[in-house]
């Protein structure tokens, strides 16, 4: 499998009062395409900081991030967000004065990737695939349940035809049944559509359904082996 995202020697710290707080410490990792990753970690371990760097919303103090073979520097961040990555948030973050269909169309309008011409029809079909039927697709998003909103958020992330989906606690606000549905969608995206999904989560149950589990600890990413697994199950 080819590498889709490479993190090389990434460091991130900030000054907290008098002391320097290091969040990411010379972190390196290679994410392969077509796999479903989950990143686990304690609260305050830097999961959100790592996700913000991987999604191009923030830049590290040092180190390099590469998408496929291209270095994503400051100048390339906007293009990276626009054409390479889709983000799913814990709070869904849909635009609340728009319908699900319109939320997806906004995303489709903000990419340079080649998309089918009939964007409205494509957006409708995409939503239907995630269980948002046309009657719901044309209501305001505030009238949908949490699970439905998260599906719309996933559809919005995918609508740009990107290969990399990053999700920040996507099931954090959902019940167990809905959580399973969402994870199933992620699995489906990797298995049937070759997408790479990286989910940051607290949920051990969710992580157990992924292809690869990674633990963020002491500012570095560690593949979860048996020993780490025991530690995770006892502490997270």
């Amino acid at each position: 499998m080819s590498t889709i995202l490479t993190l090389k020697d990434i460091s991130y710290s900030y000054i907290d009062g008098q002391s320097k707080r290091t969040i990411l410490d010379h972190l390196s990792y290679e994410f392969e395409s077509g796999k479903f990753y989950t990143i686990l970690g304690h609260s305050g371990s830097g999961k959100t900081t790592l996700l913000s760097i991987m999604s191009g919303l923030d830049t590290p103090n040092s180190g390099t991030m590469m998408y496929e073979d291209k270095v994503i520097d400051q100048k390339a961040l906007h293009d990276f967000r626009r054409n390479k990555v889709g983000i799913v948030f814990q709070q869904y973050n849909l635009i609340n004065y728009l319908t699900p269909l319109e939320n997806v169309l906004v995303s489709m309008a903000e990419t340079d990737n080649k998309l089918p011409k009939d964007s409205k029809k494509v957006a409708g079909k995409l939503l239907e695939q995630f269980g948002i039927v046309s009657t719901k697709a044309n209501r305001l998003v505030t009238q949908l349940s949490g699970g439905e909103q998260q599906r719309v958020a996933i559809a919005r992330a995918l609508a740009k035809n990107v290969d990399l989906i990053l999700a920040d606690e996507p099931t954090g606000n959902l019940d167990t049944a809905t959580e399973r549905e969402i994870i199933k969608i992620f699995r489906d995206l990797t298995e049937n559509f070759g997408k790479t999904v990286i989910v940051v989560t607290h949920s051990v149950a969710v992580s157990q359904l992924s292809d690869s589990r990674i633990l963020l600890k002491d500012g570095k990413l560690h593949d979860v082996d048996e020993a780490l697994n025991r530690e995770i199950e006892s502490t997270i």
Partner: protein
Amino acid sequence: MNFFQRAIKNITRRPTKSILLLLTFFIIGNFVIIGIGISTAANQAKTITRKSMRAVVEYTVDYDAINEYTSSLSDSELEELYQDTERYNAMYNLTEEEFQQFLDDPRVVTYNATNYYIGSADIESQPIGNERENQDTGGVSVYSGSDGETIEVPYVEPEFRIMTNRTANMIELADGTWTISEGRFYTEEEIASAAPVALISEQVAELNGLSVGDTFTMNFSQDFEYVRQMGIEFSESQLHPELEIIGIYSTSETLDRNSENFDWMSRYESPYNRILMPNLTYMSMQLPLNQAVFDYYAQQNPDDSYYNDPANRPTLDTYDYISSVVFLLDDPLDVEPFINEYNEKLSSSYRMFNADNDTFNQMARPLDSIGLYANVIVAIVVVNAIIIITLVTALTLKTREYEIGVLVSIGASKLKVISQLFAELIIIGLVGFTLSVVSGSLIASTAGEALLNYQVAVDDSYASDDDDYYYVSGSTDYFTEITQEDMLANYHVSISPIIIGEIYVAGIGIVLISILVPSLMILRFNPKRILTASL
């Protein structure tokens, strides 16, 4: 879905916020339209009135400045000034070089280098028909003779205004007030050679049965009488010099019988009782008198160095001067800029420009006041509008941070986010301003009239007696008489397409400035915040 479509959705699906903003724009729009409407009407009334006035500027000797200067001099210094003919003339007389500097200005159409006198001729003048002309004034003119004795000459009122030209230009002929109905105007050669030629009016010509080629005589008996009483004799040709009529003019000027001044008018104030002749022609007729007076005083004061210097004896050149030149400009609106421009370049502090600006500005005072009020109101409203809309937008932005974060995270540029915000404001603003155009047009006229009436009343209560001061002299005859009623009658508050255009420009300007602070907030927005729970 582009930013403009998002803006439309945001406006229509958040009606409360949109209506509040719409109301703000509507109220602002009303104030702005009323303010601009009133201000424009006031300016238009002034412009219309100004355009109806003659575009004349007088360049003249500033006698007030000279008096101020001479009163600061000691007796000996003053005597020195009077003895120094060259310096004295430089102060009191305009030279041709002085006024010719203005002739190259493209705004100058023509000019009058004209002196004005009153005198008598041995022909009938056109009657005015008021009470005064039939009354004997019974006055006397008093002159000082030798050894302090006084000479009294019965006063006989002159019947003609004598206009003497130094150049072959006449504003009246250029602007059509006068036309030469028969014959011609005099030439530069005739002016230079003091040729005995003159023009009279159609009315006087008809009254006396005169036509071009005929002659008539002036009558200086009255002027020369006091000198004759000193024992100096003049020839018949000196007392009654002959002039050939080379032209007859007709004038569109009329006597206003309803004028307040009509009953006090002399015949020489009638536009028909004017005799035109070259300046040197008139001076040559006056020269015997002036030389005789000089000789008389030289004889009476044998020790006086001034009278004993033959160089000081009057010649024709001594009186070949002028104290004012009136320029006709191509546009009445040029009068003020013309004066302002050349005032800064005046080479002498004893020269000034005169126009009917003072009267005009006095009449325009209420309009200036309401124009100022209106502009102040517009300025206050616009500044407040910018502050209010900036604050409203900035506060609204705070509640929309997550939306901005989402848009930036999915790849929208911050410029597009700002564009959406601008589009939302501009759409609501345009609707609000359009509604205000309708209501503002209805209110502006009533508000404008009320404000003007109030201002006229206030202005009247502050008016001083000086404001009624009115004077007539030769040059000021060129100034158009206006009344405040005439000017105020031109004041009509109406909302023209130009004003509507200005309202929209003002609206766009307000939105553009109001969006500056929110735009900075957006530009400084850190998209990472979308991942934090605080949004």
